[in-house]
């Protein structure tokens, strides 16, 4: 995860990103001058940049992680049913754990370990939400942790590269994107 693999990742990510941004810039200036077709709103542009950054990051990562596949090939809408089921199950589970004070008064009928396990489960589910592909039931805890580590490392690089590109565009203007 560190060292040369990160450097070649950054390079590939930067190249992918610049290509996407160039295409986006071309598209924008074409429509601007032709007055045909709607120019992208600022919000749409921001979403395009963000999406380009994610795709560039996932593509540069290559094989060896699940989160990349989730970004590059998002789940079909058929999985919406599964997702709804999971949300309902999650909510039911939460309701069950709510009367914590009542249990404490019980005098330890539910062990501290059980409460801790419930907390870990809830936190694990929260983590699944923020990692692409984490919601997949096939991802066990160990895999989730490994995915989290990999994703964090690459997210950090994404932030760095985006910052570098912003600064370069600010300083050198459009020549970067031509």
């Amino acid at each position, binding site marked *: 995860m560190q060292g040369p693999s990160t450097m070649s990742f950054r390079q590939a990510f930067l190249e992918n990103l610049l290509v996407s*941004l160039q295409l*986006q*810039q071309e598209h*924008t*200036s*074409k429509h*601007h*001058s*032709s007055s045909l077709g709607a120019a992208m709103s*600022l919000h749409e*542009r*921001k*979403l*395009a*940049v*963000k999406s380009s*950054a994610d795709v560039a990051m996932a593509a540069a990562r290559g094989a060896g992680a699940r989160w990349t596949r989730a970004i590059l090939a998002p789940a079909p809408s058929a999985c919406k049913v599964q997702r709804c089921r999971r949300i309902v199950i999650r909510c039911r589970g939460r309701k069950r754990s709510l009367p914590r004070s009542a249990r404490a008064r019980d005098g330890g009928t539910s062990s501290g370990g059980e409460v*801790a396990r419930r*907390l*870990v489960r809830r*936190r*694990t589910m*929260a*983590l699944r939400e*923020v*990692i692409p592909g984490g919601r997949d039931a096939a991802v*066990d*805890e*160990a895999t989730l*942790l*490994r995915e*989290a*580590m990999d*994703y*964090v*490392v690459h*997210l*950090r690089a*994404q*932030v760095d590269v*985006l*910052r570098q*590109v*912003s600064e370069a*565009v*600010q300083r050198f*203007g*459009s020549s970067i*994107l*031509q």
Partner: protein
Amino acid sequence: MSSRRGRITDEEINELISKLQALLPESSRRRTASRSSASKLLKETCGYIKSLHQEVDDLSDRLSELMSTLDDASPQAEIIRSLLR
């Protein structure tokens, strides 16, 4: 590299947890105890990923704004406009 199927050992989980802790920013490492609970670490990781997402969001905002201010100044756009006049 397929790991053995079946139950994941506590050792494996602990190893992953300590590796994960090493990745989190220095400030949160100091706050959590050296023997931090798994749930604390999961919470930290979640929060860290969310903050990174926010940074990406802000930078995308900035970059798209910069790109839109460039459009008018872009030499290509100017050439095309002058041809259409």
